[in-house]
């Protein structure tokens, strides 16, 4: 395409340097207006919103992590408390068993002691009664001997008869 033909075409379409420059200036003005008042603020706002959403997402993830950790922690605490409670219950059970056993042993000991004392008391009483009976029997033998023999027995005889009677009587 020759320059003359190109110039002819441009002339036919009304292209002149003045008009071309004026239109370029208008386009430059639109560019500056949009860049200054539209794209800058809008892109900044979009970026701010994107950042806010990202922050929100990060916070959500952190909350989810914290929640999971708290749940894990609570679970661990519950498990620990459960185990502690089981241990305490077992210890209380064991302690109660030991105590019951001790009490039982004490009761048995006490009962044995009471029984022993009772036996001792009974034996003592029996012995006392037996002694008393022997003495009574000795006195009756002495009385009987006195009546049968018609002789008044002195105290030594009475003592001797009573002792022999007591020796011979075995109850």
């Amino acid at each position, binding site marked *: 395409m020759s320059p003359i033909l190109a110039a002819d075409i441009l002339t036919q379409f*009304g292209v002149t340097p003045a*008009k071309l420059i*004026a239109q370029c200036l208008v386009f430059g003005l639109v*560019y500056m207006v*949009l*860049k200054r*008042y*539209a794209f800058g603020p*809008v892109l900044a706002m*979009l970026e701010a919103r994107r950042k806010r959403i990202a922050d929100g997402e990060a916070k959500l993830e952190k909350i989810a992590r914290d929640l999971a950790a708290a749940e894990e922690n609570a679970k661990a605490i519950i498990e620990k408390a459960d185990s502690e409670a089981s241990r305490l219950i077992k210890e209380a059970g064991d302690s109660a068993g030991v105590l019951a056993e001790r009490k039982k042993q004490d009761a048995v000991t006490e009962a044995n002691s009471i029984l022993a004392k009772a036996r001792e008391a009974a034996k003592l009483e029996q012995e006392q009664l037996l002694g008393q009976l022997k003495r009574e029997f000795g006195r009756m033998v002495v009385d009987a001997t006195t009546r049968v023999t018609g002789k008044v027995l002195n105290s030594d005889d009475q003592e001797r008869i009573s002792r022999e009677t007591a020796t011979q009587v075995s109850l």
Partner: protein
Amino acid sequence: MFGLSQPLSLLPTVLANVAQDARTIPGLNFLPFLTDSLLVAAIVVGVVFWFSRKATTNMQLVPHPAQNFFEAIIEFFYDRIEGIVGPKIALKTFPLLATLFIFILVSNWFGLIPGVGTIGWGEGSGFGVLSEVEHPLFRPPTADLNLTLGMALVVFAVWIYITVREVGVWGFLVHTFGPKGGVKGLMGLVMIVIFFFVGLVELFSILLRNVTLPMRLYGNVYAGENVLHTMSSMLDGQGPIVSFIGSVLLPLPFYFMELLVGALQAMVFTLLTAVYIKLSTDHGEEHH
């Protein structure tokens, strides 16, 4: 039709009744740059400025409706740009690419507002009625080659700046002319020659972007203006009522088509620019 005696012209015969060029405002001829398309471009700047201020005033993390709408557009577009040129280049090129898209889109759709191209000065055929609007007051800025060419030149300058900054002059030359494939020996020498010529073709195609980008956009919008103008004036001369009904009903389907074309052309211009930047900085992205 052309007769044999007429000189052969490479330029097409103008069949449409919408002027190819933007016209200066009558009475303001001392300002040769102040055209009908520049006037609309200035209005578009005002609209864009007003809406951007409305959308970005008192911005909240929970957005108000205008902010929400604007943010949705910006975010959607940023994602697309980032997908094409990569996150690093997207930060640098997004303002330019988004400006291209929004400005072209609003300019294209502005041309569909009733009155654009039909209000102006011309030969009168009655009170307030013109038989032909010779000097329209408003013209879609993208139907003016001055704007589309200007944008393409700006894009080209930015493309050179980003390319040189990302890969350097030597990197660009190697990327364009260097042999690919790692072939060695005699075949390697042959490949050097081949890729040198491929590089020349590539260089030519790069320079040709300054023609294809503006002409594609201009051609589509200008053609759309012509279609709408032609359809709305198809029943002219059939009486005032028929002419009025025809001027309302006939272009109506094409308005929807032009809405689509306007969005599509804005997207094409912007995405092609993004692709051009991607192609030249791709090498740099791998190495940086």
